[in-house]
């Protein structure tokens, strides 16, 4: 009988402890914008209350550690995942995300990739039951106080290539052009706080994007293409006038990212630079009025 009661008390104790830990991890009302430290690659997580938006997943399962650090343990659902373009340093980790989490909406670049990993992701998404849509500059999403406005690719840009007539699927069409030029560009807005998340776009298309007139002053800029020379241009910096520039990049990566010219350009404009290879996860907190770096 003594043993019986010992098990009952142990069981009740665990229930109590689980509740305490669950309550301690309840989210606040602020927006947490986290550039995950995923090595060489991109993964940006926006959290507001129990809503999460994940933009790209890095190259591998490191993104799961970032999600563990910034989501309560009982929340196993990511409301929206966005894939800017099908390159493995952006989609690789999404394979693990779809295996470990329930994803409600998947906003995915329409361009296909014949890489083995991308085919694995396609199959997983199909089985997962996530709502799939291909974003264009006409797309905008509202989730509570969080607004996502897609700036690129334009319908014209997609129309040039997509002869398949298929939309809202993974890999609607294939292209021989540089995948980066199709990269999804997101304007994220929360109260007075704006962030521009331009994936891997580069000089080839930045002119066209600016011509669309949707790039405006922001507080936060994710530097396109991990700080590659084939990324940020002075024109994009002048149009977005950020206060902080976040570079998602791996230590001693073989591409030599970030490029010195890009760093010099930012220093010249006195933009504060934060790099994931130097500080790990970069978390910006905002209530929609003021913001700070955690």
């Amino acid at each position, binding site marked *: 009988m003594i043993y019986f009661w010992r098990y009952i008390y142990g069981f009740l104790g665990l229930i109590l*402890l689980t509740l305490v830990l669950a309550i301690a991890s309840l989210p606040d009302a602020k927006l947490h914008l986290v550039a995950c430290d995923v*090595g060489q690659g991109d993964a940006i997580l926006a959290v507001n209350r129990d809503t999460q938006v994940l933009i790209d997943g890095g190259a591998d399962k490191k993104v799961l*550690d970032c999600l563990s650090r910034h989501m309560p*343990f009982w929340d196993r659902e990511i409301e929206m995942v966005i894939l800017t373009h099908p390159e493995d340093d952006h989609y690789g980790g999404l394979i693990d995300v779809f295996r470990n989490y329930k994803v409600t909406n998947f906003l995915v670049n329409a361009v296909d990739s014949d*890489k083995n990993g991308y085919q694995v992701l396609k199959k997983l998404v199909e089985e997962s039951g996530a709502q799939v849509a291909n974003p264009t500059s006409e797309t905008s999403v509202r989730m509570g106080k969080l607004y996502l406005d897609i700036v690129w690719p334009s319908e014209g840009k997609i129309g040039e290539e997509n002869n398949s007539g298929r939309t809202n699927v993974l890999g609607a069409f294939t292209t021989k052009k540089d995948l980066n030029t199709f990269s999804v560009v997101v304007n994220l807005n929360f109260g007075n706080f704006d962030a521009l998340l331009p994936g891997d776009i580069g000089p080839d298309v930045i002119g066209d994007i600016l011509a669309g007139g949707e790039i405006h002053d922001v507080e936060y800029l994710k530097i396109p293409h991990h700080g590659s020379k084939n990324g940020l241009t002075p024109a994009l910096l002048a149009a977005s006038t950020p206060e902080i520039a976040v570079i998602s990049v791996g230590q001693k990566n073989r591409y030599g990212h970030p490029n010195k010219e890009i760093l010099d350009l930012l220093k010249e404009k006195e933009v504060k630079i934060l790099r994931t290879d130097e500080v790990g996860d970069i978390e910006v907190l905002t209530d929609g009025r003021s913001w700070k770096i955690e």
Partner: protein
Amino acid sequence: MKYAGWLFLCLLLIFRLVTYNPGFQEGQKIRIRAKITSDPIKYSFYQSFWLAGLKLSLPAYPEVSYGDLVVVEGRVEGKELKEATLVSQEKRAGYLVKLREKLLNIYKKSLPQPHASLLAGVVLGVKSGIPDWFWQALKKSGTAHVVVASGMNVSLVASFLVSFLVLIISRQKAIPFALAGIWIYAAICGMDAPIIRAAIMGSIAFSAQAVGRITYAWKGLFLSAMVMLFIKPVWFGDIGFILSFTATASILAFEPKVKKIFAFLPQFIRGSWATALAAQLGVAPILFLTFGQYSLWSPLINTLVAWTIAPMTVIAGLAGIIGLAWPALGKVLVYLAYPLTYFFIGMVNFFSR
């Protein structure tokens, strides 16, 4: 005459080891067709696993998994197959492999990493989902053995089955079912050295119960070592195999003495401390000689976290079985293991910094 049987077995084993020829020559290009019998370890850009006694690495995709029938080509270099390429792959997911996938999914969909993979490791010895940083932390703190399915798991499975079955049938008749349970469990875990050793020892212990004899732990240990080496001579000299036996042998040899020396400790920690220290007495020199590193904190941290392992295994095991029939309830039960994994992971992180 008492030892004639053992002498005969020893001679038989020596004969087997001496005449064993893996059939590969150094530098030889070979093609292997075999079933993958343990979990491939996944890295960012490649995956590695053992096939026919050789270790090989393949690109991360297409993924291969436990139970697949694969054909690979490569060049033999020591115990490795270099420049390996995948020629063909057949998914041969039998019922047990599917069952194991379902169990792992219950943990993955209920808790974040590394909590989910810690439970998968504790219950089934599955290491494939463990993040690299956590695996390093486990090794550094000397606690990696908890994510190996071994003796405790086998005796939990067997006693669980027996205590259920005695409600319907007699204890004598329940034993064969318990033995079947042990081996089905070992197959679900993947046939690694520690689980096979534990399954053989468990089988000997439970069969001895059935015929009414007292079990002899030492005999069981030696007999299982011999059986394993006889079937798989490639394990001779394998570090995992040696560690698994040394740990069990040193617990058998030293635990009672260590317990006596530390008689002044309060009872609730004395047991764990004695087991941890006794195991380390044998294992530490091997670890140090092989890997050149050893954490002196290891017995202490093992004592601190030891109490969480049994409840973790029981809760996650039950949650898995219940979750197969009723996923929502399984998930709620997995949550109850969270305070335990939270404590365990916190301790391991603290001691491996």
